[in-house]
């Protein structure tokens, strides 16, 4: 579905990604794990073309999207839940969801919003409130609901568990699995490798801008190297 080939990204003199290649098949949950600063966020932002690549190619559903502007990429069905949630703090919960549906003009936006409210009842209660008044967990739900409003085929999630209490993390991962079960392919970036590997089908390990390991998520989770470096053993 998505193919990233030999992509390199620089921030000025900093080489953030070097020759990164990986692919995602339709229907999968693919986890991307790695330490802080490994380049995980950069990969997602390069797919969304918020950050330009200096080399390499990104293909999505057989279409070269490397140079497409970000809003065109969203229209093709790739939606991102950015790191740190980045809800529009001064806008209401409802308006945040409307922004998620910005590319759409069909008449099912309203019913999709109802579905989001069913999935996240807390958001329904806080519809009219500015997003900055929500708790961290609620903001994460809003950021996910907002991304779902574009009806993505591929959902990019950047550290959805960051800063959340363990119970909430469980709940968020449960929801990620449900979203996947309803047909959305998922690329999941996590520092919480344990959780990520437990729900992913396949995974890639990123180290200082390079893919160093890849494979079946269960196998990686039992790989001694991975256990030592990322699972705290």
């Amino acid at each position, binding site marked *: 579905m998505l193919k990233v080939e030999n992509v390199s990204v620089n921030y000025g003199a900093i080489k953030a990604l070097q020759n990164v290649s990986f692919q995602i098949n339709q229907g999968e949950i693919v986890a991307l794990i790695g330490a802080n600063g490994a380049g995980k966020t950069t990969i997602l932002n390069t797919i969304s073309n918020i950050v330009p690549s200096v080399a390499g190619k990104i293909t999505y559903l057989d279409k070269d999207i490397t140079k497409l502007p970000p*809003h065109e990429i969203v229209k093709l069905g790739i939606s991102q839940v950015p790191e740190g949630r980045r809800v529009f703090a001064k*806008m209401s919960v409802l308006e945040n969801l*409307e922004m*998620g549906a910005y590319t759409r003009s069909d008449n099912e936006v309203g019913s999709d919003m109802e579905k989001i409210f069913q999935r996240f009842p807390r958001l329904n209660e806080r519809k009219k409130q500015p997003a900055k008044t929500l708790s961290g967990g609620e903001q994460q739900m809003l950021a996910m609901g907002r991304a779902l409003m574009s009806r993505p085929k591929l959902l990019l999630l950047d550290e959805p568990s960051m800063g959340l209490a363990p119970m909430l993390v469980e709940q968020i991962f449960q929801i990620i699995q449900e979203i996947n079960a309803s047909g959305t392919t998922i690329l999941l970036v996590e520092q919480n490798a344990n959780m990520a590997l437990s729900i992913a089908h396949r995974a890639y390990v990123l180290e200082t801008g390079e893919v160093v390991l890849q494979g079946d998520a269960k196998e990686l989770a039992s790989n001694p190297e991975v256990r030592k470096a990322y699972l705290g053993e």
Partner: protein
Amino acid sequence: MFLQQLVNGVALGSVYALIALGYTMVYGIITLINFAHGEIFMVGAFIGLLLVSFFKVNVFVAILGAMIFCMIMGVIIELIAYRALRKSSRLSALISAIGVSIFLSSLALMVFGADAKGFPDGAFPVQQIKVGSADISTLQLLIIGVAAVLMMGLEFIVQKTKIGKAMRATSEDYNTSALMGINVNRVISFTFALGSALAAAGGVLVGVLFNAVSFNMGLMAGLKAFAAAVLGGIGSIPGAMLGGLLLGVSEVFGVAIGYSSYRDAIAFTILVLVLLVKPTGLLGQKITKKV
């Protein structure tokens, strides 16, 4: 006397507010002080003057024509003078803005000459209305009315329409807005169009009020409106409205109590005083650095 000065101040302040809105909206989205904004106001005044002098249209049509003309001009200015510098330092963009400003005022000087131009006699029949001890002219009512309608229109667009919401989203978080599928370039063009249209309306109103339109009228009006935007809190739309009104009223009252030789200094004195106490302006919020 008080009522009289208040009306004078509100009329002047409404115009400052119209111009200040353009500064604040553009700053809110691309953190650029559009130094050429005062010149857009000046061009608007000339377009209004030309429409009235040569096409004998009424004041409302003149305002509308000037708004449309400047809307297009504002979009073009952003496209050729600022867009390529979007990712450069703000200083480069500011210098480019100063360049556009000098270009437009020089162009106006070449085309229209150095003398201030007045509207044809009787273009706008002005009547005085007595309210208590105050003499309020229909011209002042026109200015206050037009400014109020435009600001309500703006508020509607920004709060209720899809593109207006996209403007708010973009000014909060540029990158995340792009992740929503918002075409941020289009939002920026739209912001320039709105701001320029309001400045153009302000230009025609000021031209009519003082019956004078000149190539350099944008400089002082632009600076004061910028002061108004900062006073209200740059980036804040209600702030620009409030700042404009406050400056207009203070200026008129300052002159009335005898500081007429300091007329142009009043705005900046207030600005400095407010910023000393509240650096973010009256309705401004702490500026969080965008990454």
